[in-house]
């Protein structure tokens, strides 16, 4: 080592022993964000009809009223060859992602019943919106019961 290097080392050691603080170099980033520009988002095509089937809390069983509706709808759709889109929805209680899954269970239950009633499966699409698109705002059973639904839309 050269004498200069030795001196630096010595100085560092002395500084360490004397516990003198060396200056930290810090930098603040700008952290600007740019929004995404998205032009096309889904818009619903023209509806031919929309029916609702309701469910009890945390459940995806179709009751007798629901079954009747689906039967009627199935025969209609078979005749006019319409496309069917089943949307599953939930009330706001519980976590959003879990409700997405629950909504899917409801939509699938409806789709299965439609198929049993003769609708061709390639005419049916299902989607779950979980608790994201409530029909009624309000944090009480009156609103919640209106939100626990499946929407059967035909196009």
């Amino acid at each position, binding site marked *: 080592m050269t004498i200069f290097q030795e001196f630096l080392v010595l100085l560092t050691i002395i500084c360490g022993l004397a516990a003198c*603080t060396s200056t930290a170099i810090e*930098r*603040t980033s700008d952290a600007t964000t740019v929004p995404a520009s*998205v032009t096309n988002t889904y818009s619903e095509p023209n509806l031919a009809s929309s029916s609702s089937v309701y469910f009890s809390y945390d459940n995806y069983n179709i009751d007798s009223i629901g079954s009747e509706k689906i039967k009627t709808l199935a025969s209609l759709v078979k005749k006019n060859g319409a496309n069917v889109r089943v949307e599953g929805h939930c009330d706001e209680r519980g976590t959003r992602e879990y409700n*997405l899954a629950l909504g899917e269970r409801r939509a699938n239950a409806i789709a299965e019943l439609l198929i049993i009633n003769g609708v061709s499966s390639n005419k049916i699409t299902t989607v779950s919106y979980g608790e994201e698109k409530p029909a009624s705002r309000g944090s009480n059973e009156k609103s919640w019961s209106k939100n626990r639904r499946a929407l059967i839309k035909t196009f």
Partner: protein
Amino acid sequence: MKIFYKITFSTLIFLSTYIYSELRIEITGGTNEPIRVAMVPLEWTINTVPSLYLHEVVKKDLESFGEFSVLSPEDMLSYPTLEGEVSYRDWRLLKVDYLIIGSVLESEVIGEVKIAYSILDVSRQKNIHKALISGSIKSLKRIGHNISDRIYQKINGIPGIFSTRIAYVDKPVSGDDSYNLRITDIDGDGDSSLFLSNQPILSPDWSSDGKQLAYVSFEEGTSRIYIQELSTGNRRALKHERGINSSPSWSPDGNYLAAVLSKGGNPDIYLYNLRNNTWKQLTDHYGIDTEPDWSPNGKSLIFTSNRSGSPQIYEINASTMRIKRRTFEGTYNARARYLPDGKSIIYVHRRKGIFHIALHKLKTGRISILTDTFLDESPSVSPNGNVIIYATKDRNTGADVLAGVSINGKTKFILPSASGGAREPAWSPILDKY
């Protein structure tokens, strides 16, 4: 020689006596008084007029969670800017624990400032941190937050969170079909839009480097996962599958996203390889498996599953694939997140019909309820593990608001929301590292 041995013998006995009787006094507690900090208004040596006062930014930051008490300049006895000018007696009289002094200097770079500052330990009259921080003059407030972070870290030993940001979804009560992914500073400043849509947006999740956000968007008519680069606004979609594509969670190394697909007939956890755009199935059960979260060390994931009949939290080892159930109390436990030390988790826990946020120590299984608000969900923890932010409903107005609670349960706060529709908060990682 006789005497020599006698002396040696006695000395040894004496020494052993000495070792045996050393007193140990245990200090198990201290005072609850907040730590007292004083920041002298910085000497401003440059020509530009200050747009704000850094000592005010720091005072507001440090006092946010009730942990500090910061002296106002009116109460100071002197205004030193150099260490040599400090009369420690003045500050001891004011019962100040830590003193910050400094000056704002000209930078060689146009449009930038340099701030030299020191953090002084008043009781022991020592400089515990000396730094030179630089940044754009437009980011002066951000520089202030960085200084708050350093002060916090030197005093508490854990990182400060004053420079972190919250990403959240906003659905204004007024707008019918308007969903907005937004980002804001911790103090509510800089609240801006990242992505606007007329279809639902859910589950924002930060990458560990703080540069990207993954989220779910229904813009194509059904749930799909997208990744957005914050500095450019550029997006890319994951290869989507039939059914649900949701609940993204970044791996700590940034190479994978854990997510939920229902293409197999029911929702299961999958891993998406970001390098070759392929999906790999992680769980396979006819029940609902959802809401995965990677552990900070990348070795395991926690997720929600109703395989036992109702939603509970499970943990899967990423290499052995062994699954272990974690929650046994209550009939609804979901949306779990690891704390940064990997030793505890927080999740939504239903008790007597009310949804709360619970803190759960993995080793002991001990649970403590952190919140007493209404319909609590989507908890997110600060990167220093000290504060939880979550979504809840204002009991009076019914508005969706974001609320926070410190991990020890002592400090609570509500983030004011203009729109009344704020939900799904996601706390960023530490953004400015040194």
